[in-house]
């Protein structure tokens, strides 16, 4: 039988999605369904003086209106789930609705329940709120200044956390032959899944069971947190995530809104549905990034890097989101050396409260930012000493023979061979010829730029003991149950929850190979806390590395048990049984055989099992990896900048990634493409914008520039395979590599194109206006 792992197979999950048979949150209809809407603060910072709901209560179809005061003591605070230790973390209480003070545009003020999708909006418009506006803190560096307005009165200088890792002395920097100092603003962006958030609650007063369908990347985390918030037993709270239209980090968070819908459904004894509008999504769903990074990179004039010192000032928004505190600290601060063997490194991070929407993990979460600063800084260093950007990278790479490699801050990279994807990428573009071509074009006045990013990122979360040590309020192991039915058909249950990644297909490929059965015989069950005992969800590119590990282990256990049954039936010892392609046979006696299907039946009937063996063929495995995984690679971008308009055209994009074992090249390439589009989006077009009053100015896709098809050339991809030793599949994460690699690659390319003008940096996103101005202000102009 042809192996499934490694095969370019089309996806199992597609037919329903292609024919309109998907079942997304807003598709759920229940008898007696009520609709909910949330009134949100139009002010960035204001005292709530009075909420008048009299008129609203007279509106047709209104069922209930709740304010923050009404819910006091009835719903608990919404907690953050990443309490980073040794950071003097100050978690300000976040209530499901603001009680006396709104702290960002989008902060919930009142919950309205009414009969009908439109009626509920009518009611919302009739609520009158008297606000007294307060001074605002918007930019994180300004928010830290003396006398800045306080977002939370008892949190000094708005500093939510102050964290440090590693030691670099002044002498390491000031005494170095060459030092590059730079400040980068990795701007705030919106994850922007095409499906906004939604929740539907249904309560059974008889059984006391609450079912909550909601958009979540981690249903079990939602259950764990919401059971506390709503004071309901985990055994009576069922979270179901229906088909979900993307997440990208924006649906990791346990938000006040899901708690409100669960509460209202229980309080009213009727099902309630809430679907976020896009404008609401821009203000009420967590944003990503928003980190101001000051970096000092020191080294020798021969290109050897000796020390890096980084300070990250991160805008955490008005409250701590579910994973927000970990992004600019753990995720960012331990990876600042990137793929390079820089002996000394330190990072100091300030997390700052502001009157803006909270920030949380967004595709890459901290790694795009850390990769951005090192990949940009190394280019500046190379320019300063007149070295080719490829050469300086090669010179400083952590060497293949040093893996597992321990970086300056103590992280152990599982496996790596950084030269391999670099060489392959260079081959693909013919680097030497390209540089010549660039020089020729320059003579003709054309601005061609070549940008490189040789990234490594940390993902595949991860060892639970480490999670505990870094303050993550959860385990990060994974669970899987393989259940073989009497017919030989199989259900597999696992706790990582797909929303577009294609888990059903890739995991089925793993199981098909293990059990020697066709893909069609395998059906996965995800996203339901009643069906799946436990799991920690999908984020940090952990599904294949950790979830896949659990699936693989459970399938192995099925084979072990099945082998024993086969041996028993064939009256030989287990050692004498060979298992391949779904057939158990006695070594050297091919006619003495049992098929997987036959054993499935025997096990389930249990008419004749070995003594002491329990009936059935079902195995569960819990997998807690020994380390994170560290995918790496080289991305090269070629751009042309129009010097008269400042417009940027991406001429070529080459991505060579090493993500360990590639289970399905087709879906892997899809992940790479999507990740790149999001990273290029950050570099060139996207940006959440607030004005000085804290008003959100980018509240729709008219105002927030999403990447479009015509902005891209055909992306050229390739993989190298350096297996990971820390999971059974040898796989690493692939979801975030494209985003992580592409942001600096594009930026480096544009800066390279503008070299004749002496341009060293432009703040993202690179709008034509900014580029044009940089050219106008450049040397020789």
């Amino acid at each position: 039988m042809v192996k499934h792992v490694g095969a370019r197979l089309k996806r199992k999950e597609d037919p329903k999605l292609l024919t309109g048979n998907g079942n997304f949150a807003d598709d759920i209809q229940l008898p007696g369904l009520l609709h909910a809407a949330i009134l949100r603060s139009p002010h960035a910072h204001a005292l709530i003086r009075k909420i008048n709901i009299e008129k609203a209560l007279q509106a047709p179809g209104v069922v209930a209106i709740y304010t923050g005061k009404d819910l006091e003591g009835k719903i608990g605070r919404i907690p953050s789930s990443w309490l980073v230790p040794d950071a003097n973390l100050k978690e300000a209480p976040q209530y499901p609705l603001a009680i006396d003070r709104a702290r960002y545009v989008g902060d919930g003020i009142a919950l309205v329940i009414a009969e009908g999708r439109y009626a509920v909006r009518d009611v919302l418009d009739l609520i009158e709120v008297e606000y007294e506006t307060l001074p605002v803190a918007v930019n994180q560096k300004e928010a830290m200044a003396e006398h800045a307005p306080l977002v939370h009165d008892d949190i000094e200088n708005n500093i939510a956390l102050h964290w440090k890792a590693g030691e670099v002395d002044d002498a390491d920097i000031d005494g170095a032959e060459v030092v590059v100092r730079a400040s980068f603003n990795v701007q705030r962006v919106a994850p922007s899944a095409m499906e906004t958030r939604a929740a539907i609650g249904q309560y059974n007063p008889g059984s006391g069971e609450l079912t909550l369908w909601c958009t979540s990347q981690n249903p079990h985390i939602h259950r764990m947190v919401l059971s506390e918030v709503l004071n309901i037993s985990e055994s009576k709270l069922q979270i179901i995530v229906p088909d979900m239209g993307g997440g990208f980090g924006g649906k990791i968070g346990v938000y006040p809104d899901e708690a409100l819908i669960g509460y209202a459904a229980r309080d009213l004894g009727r099902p309630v549905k809430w679907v976020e509008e896009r404008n609401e999504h821009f203000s009420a769903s967590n944003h990503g990034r928003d980190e101001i990074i000051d970096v000092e990179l020191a080294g020798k004039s021969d290109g050897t890097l000796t020390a890096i010192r980084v300070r990250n000032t991160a805008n955490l928004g008005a409250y701590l989101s579910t994973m927000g505190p970990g992004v600019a600290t753990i995720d960012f601060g331990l990876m600042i050396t990137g793929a390079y063997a820089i002996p000394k490194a330190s990072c100091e991070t300030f997390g700052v409260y502001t009157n803006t929407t909270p920030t949380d993990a967004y595709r890459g979460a901290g790694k795009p930012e850390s990769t951005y600063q090192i990949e940009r800084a190394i280019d500046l260093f190379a320019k300063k000493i007149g070295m080719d950007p490829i050469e300086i990278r090669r010179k400083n790479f952590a060497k293949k023979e040093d893996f597992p490699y321990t970086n300056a801050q103590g992280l152990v990279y599982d496996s790596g061979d950084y030269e391999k994807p670099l060489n392959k990428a260079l081959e693909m573009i013919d680097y030497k010829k390209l540089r010549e071509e660039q020089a020729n074009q320059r003579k003709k006045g054309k601005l061609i730029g070549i940008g490189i990013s040789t990234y490594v990122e940390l993902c595949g979360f991860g060892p639970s003991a480490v999670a505990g040590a870094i303050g993550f309020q959860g385990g990060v192991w994974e669970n899987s149950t393989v259940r073989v039915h009497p017919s030989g058909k199989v259900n597999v249950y696992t706790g990582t929850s797909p929303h577009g990644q294609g888990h059903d297909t890739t995991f089925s490929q793993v199981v098909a190979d293990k059990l020697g059965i066709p893909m069609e015989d395998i059906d996965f069950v995800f996203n339901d806390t009643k069906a799946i005992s436990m799991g920690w969800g999908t984020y940090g590119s952990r599904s294949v590395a950790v979830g896949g590990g659990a699936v693989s282990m459970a399938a192995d256990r099925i084979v072990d048990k099945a082998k024993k049954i086969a041996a028993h039936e064939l009256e030989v010892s287990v050692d004498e049984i060979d298992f391949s392609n779904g057939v158990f046979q006695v070594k050297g006696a091919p006619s003495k055989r049992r098929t997987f299907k036959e054993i499935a039946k025997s096990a389930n009937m249990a008419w004749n099992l070995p003594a002491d063996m329990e009936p059935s063929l079902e195995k569960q495995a819990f997998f807690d990896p020994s380390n994170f995984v560290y995918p790496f690679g080289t991305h090269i971008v070629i751009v042309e900048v129009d010097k008269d308009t400042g417009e940027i055209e991406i001429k070529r994009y080459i991505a060579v990634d090493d993500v360990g074992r590639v289970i399905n090249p087709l879906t892997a390439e899809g992940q790479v493409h999507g990740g790149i589009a999001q990273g290029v989006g950050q570099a060139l077009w996207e940006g959440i914008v607030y004005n000085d009053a804290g008003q959100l100015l980018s509240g729709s896709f008219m105002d927030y520039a999403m990447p479009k098809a015509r902005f891209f050339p055909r992306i050229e991809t390739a993989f190298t395979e350096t297996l990971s030793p820390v999971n059974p599949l040898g796989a690493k994460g692939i979801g975030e590599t494209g985003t992580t690699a592409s942001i600096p690659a594009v930026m480096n390319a544009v800066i390279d194109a503008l070299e004749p003008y002496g341009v060293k940096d432009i703040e993202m996103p690179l709008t034509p206006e900014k580029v044009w101005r940089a050219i106008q202000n450049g040397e020789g102009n």
Partner: protein
Amino acid sequence: MGIQDVSVGVIVNGKERCAEVEPRTLLVHYLRDGLGLKGTHIGCDTSQCGACTVMLDEAAVKSCTMLAVQADGTEITTVEGLGTIKNLHPIQQGFWEEHGLQCGYCTPGVMVAMVALLKENPNPTDEEIRIGLEGVICRCTGYQFIVNAVKHAAKLMAEQNIEIEEVLS
């Protein structure tokens, strides 16, 4: 609301449908909530993302920025009218073969928009497809496999046409 419901008559996926709706009912809500055709999605409310695209009398329109009453008397095709699981439309086949979708949320609208494109231009180049995708947003795929999917569909449709011509001749 003091405003009387109005009657809307449309042919959706070949079936005649008639209903009394609130005058402000958006076409997409009529299709989804009124007719249970939940394959058409809402992504942005402001007609940028195209997840709600349906065919209305041979033109691809965004059903989230059109009132149901404006569609009165028209013929509408939604994703449910393209093809069935057993008999997929070439565009559906193309998206499946070429991995033109990930989360699948924008996909129904994108496919309908691309059916409209292929009607006008049965053999589009990569660039023409990318320009044709201007009215839709996909956050997952980076568009490359959507381009492949449309090309695949164009090829399938050309083959089918040849077959039809052969049968007819």
